[in-house]
């Protein structure tokens, strides 16, 4: 006799009891009839099965963890690339070669992550007219946006703003400070949790 058929009378009883008592659980539970070889074998099989399932679950968690780590690393790298600053020469909005490479990396990520939007902020060094520098910063931000849209990124995904010389990152009064301040900064304004690394 198998375990299943042995349980059948009880199940039938339980079902009829449940129907009779209108959804109340049965008042009594079946009393075990004492160990025999069949039930020991069944119990061992059950334990083996649980152990295998547990091991599989651990493997699966570890694999998922690894995938998540990889995904997070990829997303971090993509976020870093998206927000990577580009730099300009004095009184210029021309994109230099390294700036183009930096923008190319952003284009790849933007294509893979259609929900992501960026804000480009143009900045200048402290030299020059405070007022003219606002317009120069605007032109620098617009130059980066134009490069991105020329390479297929939708214009409504890129906002621009100019801070002129009002938000320096380096406060010195020499070329090493100035060169760090002549820059476009990139801020992720939407879809930060949807960023996907390069495929």
């Amino acid at each position, binding site marked *: 006799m198998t375990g299943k058929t042995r349980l059948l009378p009880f199940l039938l009883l339980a079902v009829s009891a449940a129907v009779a008592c209108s959804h109340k659980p049965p008042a009594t539970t079946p009393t075990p009839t004492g160990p025999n070889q069949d039930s020991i074998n069944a119990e061992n099989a059950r334990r083996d099965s649980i152990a295998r399932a547990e091991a599989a679950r651990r493997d699966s968690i570890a694999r998922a963890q690894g995938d998540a780590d990889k995904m997070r690393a990829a997303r971090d790298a993509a976020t870093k690339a998206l927000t990577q600053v580009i730099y300009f020469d004095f*009184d210029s909005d021309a994109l230099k070669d390294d700036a183009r490479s930096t923008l190319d990396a952003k284009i790849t990520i933007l294509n893979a992550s259609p929900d992501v939007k960026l804000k480009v902020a143009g900045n200048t060094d402290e*030299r*020059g*007219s*405070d*007022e*003219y520098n*606002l*317009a*120069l910063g*605007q*032109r620098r931000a*617009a130059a980066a*946006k*134009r490069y991105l849209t020329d390479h297929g990124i939708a214009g409504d995904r890129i*906002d*621009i*703003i*100019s*801070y*002129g010389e*009002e938000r320096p990152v380096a406060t010195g009064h020499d070329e090493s400070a100035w060169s760090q301040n002549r820059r476009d900064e990139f801020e992720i304004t939407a879809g930060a949790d949807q960023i996907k690394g390069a495929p």
Partner: protein
Amino acid sequence: MHLTQRLITCAALAACLGIPARATAQQQDTTRGVRIGLTYQPGTKPGVVVFPVNGPGGDSLQAIVQRDFDYGDRIEVIGGDAIQETAKQQAARNAIDFTVWKSLSAAAVVQISVMGSTAHVNVYDVAAKKVAASHDVQLSGSPPGEDWRMSVHAMADQIEQWITGVHGIAATRILYVRGNRIYVIDSDGYGEHPVSEPGTVLAPAWSPDGRTIAYSELVKGGWNIVIRDLATGREHSVTATPGGLNITPAFSPDGQSLCYAHGEENGTDLYMVSASGTGAARRVTVGRGTDNVSPTFSPDGARLAFTSGRAGHPEVYTSDADGSNVALLTPFNFGDQNYRSNPDWSPDGRLIAFQSQLDGRFQIMTITLRDQTVKQLTSEGINEDPTWAPDGRHLAFTSSRTGVKEIFVLDAESGRARQLTHDPGARLAAWSHSTSAP
């Protein structure tokens, strides 16, 4: 009397009185305009003695008037303890001894007495030994309040007109930016207070009547132009070109229009809108992707000067107010870098002040519109963003000569400079247009 003889007498008397002889014989011509009846040597600043003032606030009133004359650079104030003691004695006897003042090279004696809110002013012509002007002047508020000070400045400006033929500039104010606020300060450095809410604010400008200011403010999506009524503090934004860059406002001389720079993704151009900032804006410049900013009107409102990068680097250009007839004004290679900007049209229409880079540093220069003659006005430190006083002779500008940015005032004729602000980081000054407060 011959000038030399007069100077010798002056020096002798000065020695007797134990006071240093005053500076004499200024080289520049300071005698333009029409004078009324006063006689003094052309080519010198008239020496003026201000008698002690009776009545409420008399001492500070005398000090303000003397300082206003001094800062105006058209009058040589003859002062000092010995002079004041002599003046006091004469006032007590109610008899002015012109011989003493003549020997001190004074051209005029100013006697002021205050009764209630009325100041009675007598200006005596020393050479002619008679009253040259006699007027009652109404003062506002009470000493030492801001209104009272401004009304004393207005009186000093009027007296300066009676003596030199040219209205003074004491009753004027200067806007500037420091930190996150726009501030206003009286021309003598008193009465400084903020006139904007905290924020990232730049480029303040006066309406012609001095009641309204405009400035640029950083908001979430870009830069807005804010128009603020100084008396009520009520503010509104220019709505003609929402979003993007909206900066460097300038009111037209008739107060009807506002010219400003607007930029989005294809460069920055000048636009004209009604002074309220509402309604449609008319585009003035066609910069084709370049930057066109910092407009300034000619005194008749018919022309504009502005900074443009259309030739690849910033230069000052002029055009008609509708944008036609554009011409390069500063086609000169003055220095090591091609960078000239921030023009301000002089009130007499003859000159434009601007900043030009020399050896990597900006200096203030003027250029004549008639024949483009350039004059360099500053050389110490970095000097930027000039703004003319209503007399067309003084300029305020940002200078780093003390090591930090402060607003300085310069007499373009004598080269005399004074520091106006005394907290670091002051910049972008704008001098009010009217010569007396409303």
